[in-house]
């Protein structure tokens, strides 16, 4: 997992996030920087918080419905400030089948391509975009790392890191 992300780029930042709520908040910060045609890939184990992060980003983009796990249908199309194509790439063969049927035509300059398990089925992803790594620490905390691929990815990663740095140290989570 780590190998995949470091092959994209050295982490621009790696921070420990204390709770799921804070993780969603981190994701929300990215929203204003994005535009149609951008790619954001999530990499992390089962239960690491990929969908939680995506839901936070969706909130930041004023998604019409809350983002949920796309594992069952493989791809959700959600209306938002930037229309979101939200994919689960865990089962590469299933995704190949969906995208090979023609759904990849929907990857275009108007949509945000948001992919969970982006270290799978990599032949579909552009060489230009932001990668978010999530790692289990304890039951609650996660390590969030940011990586940039290509010029646009590096630009997004650098700008996003500036905002994330402002969050540290995290305020205690309300109970």
């Amino acid at each position, binding site marked *: 997992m780590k190998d995949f992300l470091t092959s994209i780029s050295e982490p621009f930042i790696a921070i420990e996030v204390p709770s799921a709520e804070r993780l969603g908040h981190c994701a929300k910060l990215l929203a204003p920087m994005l535009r149609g045609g951008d790619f954001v890939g999530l990499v992390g184990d089962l*239960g690491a918080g990929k969908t939680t992060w995506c839901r936070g980003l969706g909130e930041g983009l004023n998604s019409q419905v809350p983002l949920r*796990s796309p594992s069952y249908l493989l791809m959700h199309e959600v209306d938002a400030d930037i229309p979101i194509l939200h994919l689960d790439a865990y089962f590469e063969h299933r995704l190949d089948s969906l995208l090979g049927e023609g759904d990849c035509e929907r990857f275009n300059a108007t949509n945000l391509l948001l992919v969970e398990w982006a270290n799978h089925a990599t032949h579909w992803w552009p060489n230009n975009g932001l990668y978010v790594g999530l790692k289990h620490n304890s039951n609650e905390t996660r390590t969030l790392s940011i990586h940039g691929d290509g010029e646009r990815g590096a630009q997004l990663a650098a700008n996003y890191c500036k905002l994330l740095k402002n969050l540290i140290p995290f305020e205690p989570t309300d109970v």
Partner: protein
Amino acid sequence: MTHEPQYILGIESSCDETATAIVVDGKQVISSVVHSQIDEHAAWGGVVPEIAGRSHLRSIRTVVDQCLAEAKLRPEQLSGIAVTNRPGLMGSLLIGVTAAKALAYAWQKPIVGVHHIEAHIYAALMSIEQPVFPYITLVVSGGHTSLYRSDSALSHQLLGATRDDAAGECLDKAAAMLELSYPGGPAIQQAGAGGNPKAFQFKQPMLERDSLDFSFSGMKTALLYKLRGPGNRLTDPWIIERKQTSDICASFEHAVVSTLARKCMRACQQHDIQQILIGGGVACNTRLRQVMNKLCAEQNIDATFAPPAYCTDNAVMIAGLGYELFAAGKADSLNLDVFAQA
């Protein structure tokens, strides 16, 4: 005026079942054919869209012919055609809808598009002789976990839904962690059959005090930690022995179904309704039925489950709801479109 019986042909192809049925007046099932593709997808850990589409295409004519033959009906005796047009896999939906349009055109019959989830609700309604609305309705399957307030067969207000994984999807992912087969629900039920549901504690997320939403991803993560053992290190082999597998399956399944049941009770309280309908693939689950019936008995609530044969995808519920839609004057034209998400 004498009532002319309405023979509705239902067609369902939204996911991995190609199904047809003929139902009279939305109640009486005179034929039902289901061609399941589950074996074709099992090796891939879930439905493969292209395999599904091709398989629907191969079987759609056969299941239509078989359905008419079983009903001993000729096409001209049909009153109309109802077909699932939302939500589901685009390529799969298209096969059923295109077939339905072709038949409607050739046989000169009216056509109506049916919402798959609302049809799952109808499957539960069909087993009630004289439904008295409103009901609290739970639709729970691999792709959906939603609570509604149903004020008629055609009117459902969404009260809550999963914020992350559907209940069936959660069971699929848990089964994958436990190296059990796909689909996960039946595999976990089988593996947990003799197990102790209280052996392991899984916190049941009820979310905010008034919320009718669900969240299952935390439970999935909790299972992962249990399997990894103390210190959150992935042990190899995993700490679970065979005996423990049955306990952990029983406990995990218990936590999932209890959450579903408790949310239904909460919805009943909030809306002052004393009756529940339950449909969708996970409604087959024995433990869900046990837990739901126990809680309902305590609170004097009536629970009606869709019959097991009509919990998983089928066309009986499509023909049934189609009848109601035709009766309400909601027929569609041949321009009927399909929608992946409703």
